[in-house]
């Protein structure tokens, strides 16, 4: 006689809710933690995950996964692969380690929150597996990043990044605090598992894994593809939650999903976009960021929201236009403010690379080419000074990223537009109309000082570039610089300097 099948007994594991009588239900499930809102409390009893898992299955499967992930790592330990990796690719990995390791830990906290406050026992159990999964991701990412510290101090930011006030990290903390650790669990389940994990993480984990393999970084590819195999399990907390919310409060469901998608799209434009279209060596690029977004995010996202009877977000056209603009503008911002980065940002605008960019993004030369030309000519004139920042970029009061998105005016010219609004006697500035609208709808919660606000308020001392870098936690051994100026400027040596470039030089 063998063991009973899971289906025969799992009902009991899932059936663990009871009626409280010594305390109020609303004390055990406070509204702002649980966010049932217009959904009647008893409606949550219908919550059911599609794909069930039990504790013994979980630990057995995960043990195998861990064993093979670390076996690959130790097999590669003595290889010299790392020393031969392209600087651009290394930068993509540094950005990943610093930008992701502690986000995985934020997800641990998010899952623990759902394990406590989830409105159904089965949901709380799934979140209990979810917090273990995320603990795995945080630990494996941290450990793999740690391995390279001896070779390159920038890998110290695997752990350090999120403890600093670097502008990139303020922006990411703002996003992930808002959609992972702090929100009520209903919003959380829709923002994290549904919008972020079934969509965006694919881009970072599946697409980047293929770039990693192309770049010869088997270790990294191994790590992120192993992580990705866990997502199917815990990301299914989103579906059943959304289904119940849509039934009782479709307006809120639409807003929560729209907000999370927008915030994620902004962050990915800042990080994944440059990594794919500029840092990954040209010969190793499989698709452009835009193509990846279309294939992995947009089709699936539209399909998902339609499946739940929701509409495309109100900002859809602005978002789609942004696919050709946002990450290119941010790449320029990242490169220009390179001393504030914990990686070495490649400019990636040699003639061949520009030809590729122009092919993938027909407006690229028109919108960005002339600005890079100024930088190129300055580098070639040995005037590096002119390519380094003296001031801070204007930061968006919603996404905390530089407000540097060009939009096309009716007369066909491209310019960076200021989106602003007045609130409480103050003017707030935004990178996009979408960010402005989100701020307004969510103004009590997201209203938060940007780095610029802090600077202007005198919180950053001394009030110069040195003071700013210190406030951001940058140390000289980590501060980013271009890994190879010549690589992208030599194609243009000796060309006549004209127009805007000349003006900038004088």
């Amino acid at each position, binding site marked *: 006689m063998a063991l009973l099948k899971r289906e025969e007994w799992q009902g*009991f594991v899932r059936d*663990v809710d009871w009626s409280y009588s*010594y305390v109020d239900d609303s004390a055990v499930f406070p509204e702002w933690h649980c966010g049932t809102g217009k959904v009647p409390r008893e409606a949550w009893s219908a919550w059911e995950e599609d794909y069930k898992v039990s504790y013994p299955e979980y630990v057995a499967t995960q043990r195998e996964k861990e064993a093979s992930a670390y076996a690959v790592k130790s097999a590669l330990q003595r290889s010299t692969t790392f020393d031969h990796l392209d600087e651009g690719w290394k930068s993509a990995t540094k950005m990943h380690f610093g930008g992701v*390791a502690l986000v995985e830990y934020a997800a*641990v906290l998010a899952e623990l929150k759902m394990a406590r406050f989830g409105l159904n026992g089965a949901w*709380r159990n799934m979140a209990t597996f979810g*917090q273990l999964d995320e603990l795995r991701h945080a*630990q494996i990412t941290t450990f793999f990043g740690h391995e390279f510290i001896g070779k390159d101090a920038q890998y110290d930011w695997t752990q350090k990044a999120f403890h600093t006030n670097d502008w990139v990290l303020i922006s990411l903390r703002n996003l992930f605090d808002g959609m992972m650790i702090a929100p009520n669990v209903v919003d959380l389940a829709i923002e994290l598992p549904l919008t972020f994990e079934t969509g965006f993480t694919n881009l970072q984990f599946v697409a980047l894994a293929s770039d990693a393999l192309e770049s010869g970084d088997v270790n990294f590819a191994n790590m992120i593809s192993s992580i990705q195999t866990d997502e199917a399990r815990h990301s299914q907390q989103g579906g059943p939650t959304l289904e119940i919310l849509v039934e009782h409060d479709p307006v809120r469901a639409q807003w929560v999903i729209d907000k999370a998608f927008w915030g994620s799209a902004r962050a990915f434009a800042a990080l994944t976009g440059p990594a794919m279209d500029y840092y990954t060596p040209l010969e190793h690029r499989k698709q452009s960021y835009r193509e990846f977004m279309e294939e992995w995010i947009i089709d699936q996202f539209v399909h998902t929201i339609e499946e739940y009877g929701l509409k495309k977000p109100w900002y859809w056209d602005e978002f789609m236009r942004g696919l050709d603009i946002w990450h290119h503008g941010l790449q320029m911002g990242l490169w220009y403010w390179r001393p504030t980065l914990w990686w070495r940002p490649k400019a990636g605008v040699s003639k061949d690379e520009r030809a590729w960019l122009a092919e993938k993004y027909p407006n690229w030369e028109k919108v960005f080419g002339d600005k890079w030309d100024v930088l190129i000519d300055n580098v070639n004139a040995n005037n590096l000074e002119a390519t380094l920042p003296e001031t801070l970029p204007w930061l968006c009061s919603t996404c905390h990223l530089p407000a540097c998105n060009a939009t096309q005016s009716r007369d066909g010219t491209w310019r960076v537009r200021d989106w602003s609004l007045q609130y409480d006697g103050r003017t707030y500035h935004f990178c996009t109309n979408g960010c402005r609208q989100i701020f307004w709808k969510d103004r009590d919660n997201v209203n938060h000082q940007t780095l610029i606000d802090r600077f202007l308020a005198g919180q950053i001392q001394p009030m110069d570039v040195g003071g700013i870098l210190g406030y951001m936690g940058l140390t000289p051994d980590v501060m980013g610089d271009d890994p190879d100026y010549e690589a992208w400027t030599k194609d243009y040596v000796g060309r006549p300097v004209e127009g805007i470039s000349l003006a900038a030089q004088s």
Partner: protein
Amino acid sequence: MTETPARKPRPRRTFSAFGDVRKMPSEYEIMTHAQNWTLRENRTSAFEQNPSSAPNLWFLTYRDNSPLQAQDWDAYRDPDSLTYRAYVNLQSEAEAKVAGVLETHAEAGSDAQLPAGSVALLGHLFTPTRYLCHGFQQVEAYIGYMAPSSYITNAAAFCTADFLRRVTNVAYRTRELQVAWPDSGIGSAERSLWETHDGWQPARKAVEYALVSYDWGEAFTALNLVLAPTLDDVLLTQLGQVAKGNGDDLSWLLTSLLAADSRRRDRWSRQLAELTIAQRPDNRAVLDKWIGRWSQLADDAAHGLGQLLASLTEGAVRADDVAAHARAARERHLASLLDPASDETTAATG
């Protein structure tokens, strides 16, 4: 002042967060240290959002301003140094053992041979524990969510999963017993026993109160220092002994195997309590007050279960003895923790 010649710093070997360490941190430390950014230094609020948002105020009140304070929570180490990898290795082995025991007994048809008294005992004191343990699971998840160091969060995170493990084993046995004894009420009566049977009410009251104890330090004290050590003594140790006496080897083995998780929880919890006192002796008064309050609830709960046990063993055990045994188990767990004389020794080892 003489100037020391500028020396090129040696290349880093580990995270700068460890400071200037001579000894290389362990794998456990590398993977666990300062992972929670809401605890970063020089923060104006836990979350990067309006400092007076509801989540920020919650974390300020129940975590940062908890009566339980320490200079350096990141000095805490789980005595078992558990990482994720170590955890799944440990528990997949533990579960393989459980599966072996279950399989052997299923093959032997043990359930069908149980005397009616044993079936009733399990149906009243074992199968209803899935509710209690699920409540514990929720409280432990909250401790992890709110804890002031990732070293503590991780220990609580594994412990949360351990409670799910226990609920899972109880669920499995519930089904097996239901199949063997379809008229026993096993598999259908648990919720009403849990919600209405006199013997269970003090335990339910304790866990419901624990669910709404939102100060993280009090939640930790309530569950890990008081309720769980007390009630595990009744529901694992004493129930296991009674089962063994009845010839129900399966229940005895299963409760003994599950008790390994409780011992591990006791180890890290005790270590954490010691650290708080070593770092700040005033915490003794804080813990003392909480332990006093929760011990009353725990003793009542143990006594209620003792009455249930007494009635199901036809007087072979007495409710008072059950409660006293459980209290003694808790007191061993807390022995000399609050003892002023232990100041120096704890400080030295802490």
